């Protein structure tokens, strides 16, 4: 709340701390996108907070010149929930990796989503544990050979978008570290959403899982494998836009538009109350080698948690008056000696 509001510059959002990710890490471009977005949002640095857990991704708060907390592994959504309830006036961003958010922190994540407290969760998914030097994560593909799975991992991965939708998320989006503009768009949308928003960011860990998303995100693969979801538009993609997504017997499928006809192509509606269609879209790809949607899967309004809590406080206040300690102490009856 400065007297003369001046539009900030991206550099104003950088701290004096040296960024310590590996050279070439996808985290850098996400950081840049965030720093570039902030001035556009016209928010104040002092009213912005970044909360994270532990992991490479979780170093993020150190690099944003805002209030920030580098918490403990997996607990960022819970810390942020407490902060958001105590301070509904703040802009709160939660940053974490796939291990942080989906392994040790999975429960806090899904509970934050169902409660719909006003925080923006960014899940940097590199399908690996970066900071601990390369074990498989809950998003790693079956068969992944890592230090802790020398014969290949046996664990079927989570699809973060499916998990989020199954957990009643009101805003779910996906983007990737190779497209700054798209990241900025998704972060902007997440910020605008009242309630918990989650954005999965495909992120490259060039040291322990290099090129994991290449099949989708590399420039030359995007046409064939990156499906951009846009509200109100038919879901089409392909080098010549020749492919489209249809619903067939209760599941989403890729089809040749020529074969099925334009009318059959699903028109994306991110605002559906029922999350089923969004869920279907999340199931289109079974791994980072098939046509995969990015964009906003779901954006619906529902009760925001902290606001509702504030309303209850106000109602109680209206009904019972402002709490008076003297009378509280006497509320169970007293006697005189």
């Amino acid at each position, binding site marked *: 709340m400065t007297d003369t509001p001046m539009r900030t510059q991206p550099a104003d959002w950088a701290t004096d701390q040296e960024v310590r990710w590996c050279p070439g890490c996808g985290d850098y471009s996400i950081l840049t996108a965030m720093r570039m977005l902030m001035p556009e949002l016209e928010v104040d640095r002092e009213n912005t907070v970044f909360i994270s857990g532990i992991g490479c991704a979780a170093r993020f708060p150190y690099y944003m010149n805002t209030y920030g907390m580098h918490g403990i592994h997996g607990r960022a959504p819970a810390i942020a929930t407490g902060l958001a309830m105590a301070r509904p006036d703040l802009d709160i961003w939660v940053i974490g990796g796939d291990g942080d958010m989906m392994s040790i922190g999975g429960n806090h994540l899904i509970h934050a989503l169902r409660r719909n407290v006003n925080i923006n969760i960014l899940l940097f998914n590199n399908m690996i544990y970066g900071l601990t030097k390369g074990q498989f994560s809950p998003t790693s593909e079956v068969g992944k050979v890592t230090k802790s799975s020398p014969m290949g991992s046996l664990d079927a991965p989570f699809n973060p978008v499916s998990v989020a939708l199954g957990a009643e998320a009101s805003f779910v989006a996906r983007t990737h570290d190779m497209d700054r503009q798209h990241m900025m768009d998704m972060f902007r949308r997440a910020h605008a959403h009242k309630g918990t928003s989650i954005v999965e960011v495909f992120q490259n860990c060039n040291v322990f899982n290099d090129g994991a998303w290449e099949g989708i995100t590399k420039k030359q693969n995007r046409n064939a494998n990156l499906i951009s979801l846009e509200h109100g538009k038919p879901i089409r993609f392909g080098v010549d836009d020749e492919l489209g997504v249809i619903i067939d017997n209760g599941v989403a499928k890729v089809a040749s538009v020529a074969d099925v006809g334009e009318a059959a192509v699903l028109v994306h509606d991110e605002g559906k109350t029922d999350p089923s269609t969004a869920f279907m879209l999340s199931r289109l790809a079974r791994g980072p080698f098939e046509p995969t949607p990015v964009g906003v899967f779901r954006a619906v309004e529902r009760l925001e948690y902290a606001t509702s809590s504030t309303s209850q406080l106000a109602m109680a206040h209206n009904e019972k008056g402002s*709490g008076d300690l003297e009378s509280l*102490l006497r509320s169970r009856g007293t006697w005189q*000696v």
Partner: protein
Amino acid sequence: MTDTAPRELPLQELAEVIIRFAGDSGDGMQLTGDQFTSISAALGNDLATLPEFPAEIRAPQGTLAGVSAFQVRISDFAITTPGDAPTVLVAMNPAALKAQLHNVVQGGALIINSDAFTERNLEKAGYESNPLEDGSLDGYRSYPVAMSQITRDAVAVHGVKPRDAERSKNFFALGLISWMYTRPVEPTIEFISKKFSGRDQVIKANEAAFQAGYNFGETAELFESHYEIKPAPLRSGEYTNVTGNTALAWGCVAAGQLARLPIFLGSYPITPASDILHDLSALKHFGVRTFQAEDEIAAAASAVGAAFGGALAFTTTSGPGVALKGETLGLAVSLELPMVIIDIQRGGPSTGLPTKPEQADLMMAMYGRHSESPMPIVAPRSPADCFDAAIEACRIALRYRTPVMLLSDGYLATSSEPWLLPAVDSLPDIGVEFQKGFNGTNEDGEGIFLPYLRDPETLARPWAIPGTPDLMHRVGGIEKEDETGNISYDPENHQKMVELRAAKIEAIEVPDADIAGDADASFCILGWGSTWGAIDATVARLQEAGHKVAHVHLRNLNPMPKDLGEVLSGFEKIICPEMNNGQLVNLIRAKFLLDVKAVNKMNGVPFTTGEIEAAALAAIEAP
């Protein structure tokens, strides 16, 4: 002498009585006991209560597992415990008699609902023959009363169905006991009409049952006499009757007001701590936000988040919950943010005995986090003291920017005592200032914010909350550079920070040791927490018997009073009764190399005065 030994009858005037109401969980014994307590309080008696709940939600009717009891002690002198053994037992059914008889003093009075002693009920309670008939109650004064029948008859006129009618029999018992101890009728009549307001038939039935009980006492000529217990010489003023958990909840609210901060509670339900969550959830008009988290870790983590945002943050739980919160509390220690963790200790290890008290989380409170992670510890000593202890815990948390552990237990949580209400404006101001501006300059002479620059007096770091212009900063659990708070792997810095964190906690100002009893005695009983009442009563007994004895009771367990070593060194013999295997004893021995003797009890039942007295006498007499 005012002990609990059997006394001659009939006596018109009594110094005290300990009554235990016992019946099936559905029989309303807690209500009956509560109401008897209220009337006695209004009469000016001193009193102390102890409820006893069944471990099961709803154990089958009539079984031992289903017995619910409420003990109340009323007296014409100051007391600190609900008494070792009841002198009067009201038993509403065979199971209640069976479960409770062993507690009653020899020669004590048994007021028994004889109607409930059917074959089926006797069998459910595991009686092979009817104790009312087989002479097994010979050592007691037993008064079988057909409570069910008389109640049914009394309420029949109000058109209540026989089944429902019997529900009122607890009021019959209350009426009878009210007559026995010459309690007035009106307060209970009033209570009934308030409590059941809107349910007229219930009111009428309960009133009729209550009156019937009262009249039965007067007319039945079953009892040799009735008794009077004069008011106790209590300090004059306005009193209320509180359980420890309610006093804690109110203490949290008070602390919020005294610090002028909004309150945040992150909690996950667990016996016997849930009531604090319940109480605070109903106090939203005090600006209290409660958050029922998905688990204890989230509960603690949310409190850390709220504290970062500038709230007075709490998390309430019991032992298993604290065991889960360890890592998160370590973060709070590292962040040096104020918050209070309330642990209502229960029987362990693991799930243990969830409804029974213990004092065995002291070592976990001290050491239940990895690495050197010091945390202040405060423990209340009586139900009403929970209020002050909560404020003290908040004072330390706020002034020194540190998480503080408050250790209560299942006994304090549910038992109650009269509390002389404090004048609200006499309560301490525990307010703190948020950091508002720069506190340092950089090389270019520009103002900067140093989030780990310490107050030279308290070693506390500044509390700068989001929303404050210019003071943007990042905190975290990695070791931080002194003053700047930037990540630092420097060895010397780490050494310094470890020492600073330890020094800050060690130097917290706490009151000097409080020596009760004979300060110049050579024998001392050392205690902490809920053993206070029993030790205090023991000391009085020992003094009356001509012994010199001191009582040092610790409220601040970490840091301990600065003069404690000196004080304790002045005694030749020290014993320390604890509901654990000797945890405070270990701390004292390590710290002061004093040969304190442990007196341990780990059976889920609080110490009796008799037990501590025996241990004290043995120690006094030992060579």
